[in-house]
């Protein structure tokens, strides 16, 4: 069919764009919240991607690290002590030998200073390579996620009742015509009001929550406890005051602690669904071989299908892998790969993450993608200079004091049992 197909255009006029756009505005936040409160289980793909070559971790546990495996609590690779004050369930973080003390404490006068991105990455590679190889039945992580609130809840009970009444009348062939017309007027007025409220969120605030994950390294069940320590934070008192003026609408989407158990839940990197948790420990530790592997993963990635270039892919996938249970050798190689593509990267030393931990930040400007809200954005990762571990990953928008999206890796490391924290 060519561009100016009159039949197509004619049928196209029947597409209910006004109706669907209106429903989209109204339903979006409730629909997203509802879906995300339930688990997602991509097990179908695993049928295809579970590698035959087996479970290298068991082999490893039996040989090289037998001594470590004998310990009751297996050397937890703690990024940093995760401030027990935050911990709904943390029963005291165990600081492992080799983990860093809180660097912020020893460096109170830290001020951000520009640095050379490539040099910073090469230095990170050096320290990362010296970290001990961890081992354990589960990879534990405690992550605080924060996102900018861009919608207000607009679907109140009154609105829903009106909508139901009106649509029921529409579906009723015997309904009185005048009554339907009157309802329609009321309904459309309510829609207009709801849309107006939804469009302008007159304050800046973020929604935070903590998720703890136990990822089984031996093919047992994973556990995820999300919706912990849910908090709304306002950019300023003035923002909070504006929220109060609106009658303090609920902003937390009704999120509360939810435990999910099952297996396997996710992929280490959503864009690379050919790469399983089991594959992570086998990733190359040599820069060139890792680069080749990433290039071939890129060819079949969803990132490529979505039109993202290799540089952006390396950044995204690199971040996914840096926070996953990869070996110190792979981590070091990954930093070297990133250093080679670092031309667009800016680096800063003396930066603090949301927990006040001091680290080195790497930044790359983000192209605004279709469907991404906001204007000029920056992707940023902060890592610990002493261990090369990632502390925080975030996307910031120019002029917006709350990050569009942020993950702070409070604690992570290997543990031996479900429910045990590193």
């Amino acid at each position: 069919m060519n561009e100016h197909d009159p039949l197509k255009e004619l049928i196209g006029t029947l597409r209910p764009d006004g109706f669907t756009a209106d429903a989209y505005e109204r339903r979006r936040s409730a629909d997203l919240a509802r879906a995300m409160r339930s688990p997602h289980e991509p097990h179908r793909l695993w049928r295809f991607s579970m590698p035959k070559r087996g479970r290298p971790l068991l082999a490893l546990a039996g040989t090289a690290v037998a001594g470590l495996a004998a310990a009751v609590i297996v050397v937890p690779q703690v990024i940093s002590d995760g401030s027990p004050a935050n911990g709904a369930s943390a029963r005291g973080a165990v600081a492992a030998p080799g983990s860093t003390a809180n660097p912020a404490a020893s460096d109170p006068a830290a001020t951000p200073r520009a640095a050379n991105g490539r040099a910073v990455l090469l230095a990170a590679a050096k320290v990362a390579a010296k970290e001990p190889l961890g081992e354990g039945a589960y990879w534990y992580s405690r992550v605080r996620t924060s996102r900018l609130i861009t919608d207000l809840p607009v679907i109140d009970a009154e609105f829903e009742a009106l909508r139901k009444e009106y649509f029921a009348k529409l579906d009723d062939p015997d309904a009185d015509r005048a009554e339907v017309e009157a309802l329609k007027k009321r309904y459309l007025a309510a829609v207009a009001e709801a849309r107006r409220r939804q469009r302008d969120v007159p304050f800046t605030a973020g929604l935070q929550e903590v998720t703890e994950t136990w990822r089984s390294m031996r093919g047992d069940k994973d556990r995820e406890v999300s919706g912990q320590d849910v908090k709304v934070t306002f950019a300023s008192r003035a923002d909070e005051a504006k929220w109060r003026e609106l009658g303090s609408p609920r902003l937390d989407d009704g999120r509360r602690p939810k435990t999910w158990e099952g297996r396997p839940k996710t992929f280490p990197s959503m864009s690379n669904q050919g790469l399983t948790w089991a594959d992570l420990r086998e990733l190359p530790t040599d820069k060139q071989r890792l680069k080749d592997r990433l290039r071939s993963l890129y060819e079949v990635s969803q990132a490529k299908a979505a039109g993202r270039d290799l540089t952006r892919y390396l950044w995204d996938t690199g971040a996914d892998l840096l926070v996953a249970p990869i070996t110190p050798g792979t981590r070091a190689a990954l930093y070297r790969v990133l250093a080679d593509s670092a031309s667009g990267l800016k680096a800063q030393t003396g930066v603090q993450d949301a927990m006040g931990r001091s680290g080195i930040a790497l930044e790359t400007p983000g192209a605004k993608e279709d469907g991404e809200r906001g204007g000029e954005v920056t992707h940023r990762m902060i890592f610990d200079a002493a261990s090369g571990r990632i502390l925080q990953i975030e996307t910031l928008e120019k002029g917006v004091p709350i990050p569009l999206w942020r993950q702070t890796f409070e604690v992570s490391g290997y543990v031996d049992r479900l429910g045990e924290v590193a």
Partner: protein
Amino acid sequence: MDDPERRFTDLYDRHYRNVLAYALLRVGPGGAEDLASETFLVAWRRLADVPDPPLPWLLGVTRNLVRNQRFRRSRGDELVARLAELAELTGFVEGDVAERVAARQEALAVLKGMRDRDVEALILSSWYGLTPAEAAHVVGCSARTFSVRLFRARRRLTEALRPNPPFALFREQT
């Protein structure tokens, strides 16, 4: 980042309106929004299964949900009647631009009397630009069968428009 929640949000933002438009053809306007929500709930649960492009898959999920009787089909099954009702509702929401109203009336007039599956074929290719193979996936038939339906529908439409058009395509307002 490739956070699943971001990926899902993106999927929702890009395709919710398309899914709802299709749901509106299958069930009444009340049920359609719930049907679209349900479709995205399935998409979230099976996020790793969602192929690229996702739309044919999503519409296939919508159609299966209706087939599973979880959603009541209202007031008969005639698509054209449902389209007429939708045209009216949309007109109100959009503020009734006269030209669009006239074009819609004309479209409805020529679709009248056509088989539902033929109308659906026209809609899938016109609203969404799906290829015959993609559209066939949605309606659960072979690509060849779908092409035949589409051809038949287009021929009827052309005939209805050509010899003695009931309305001019984009008629002048007097």
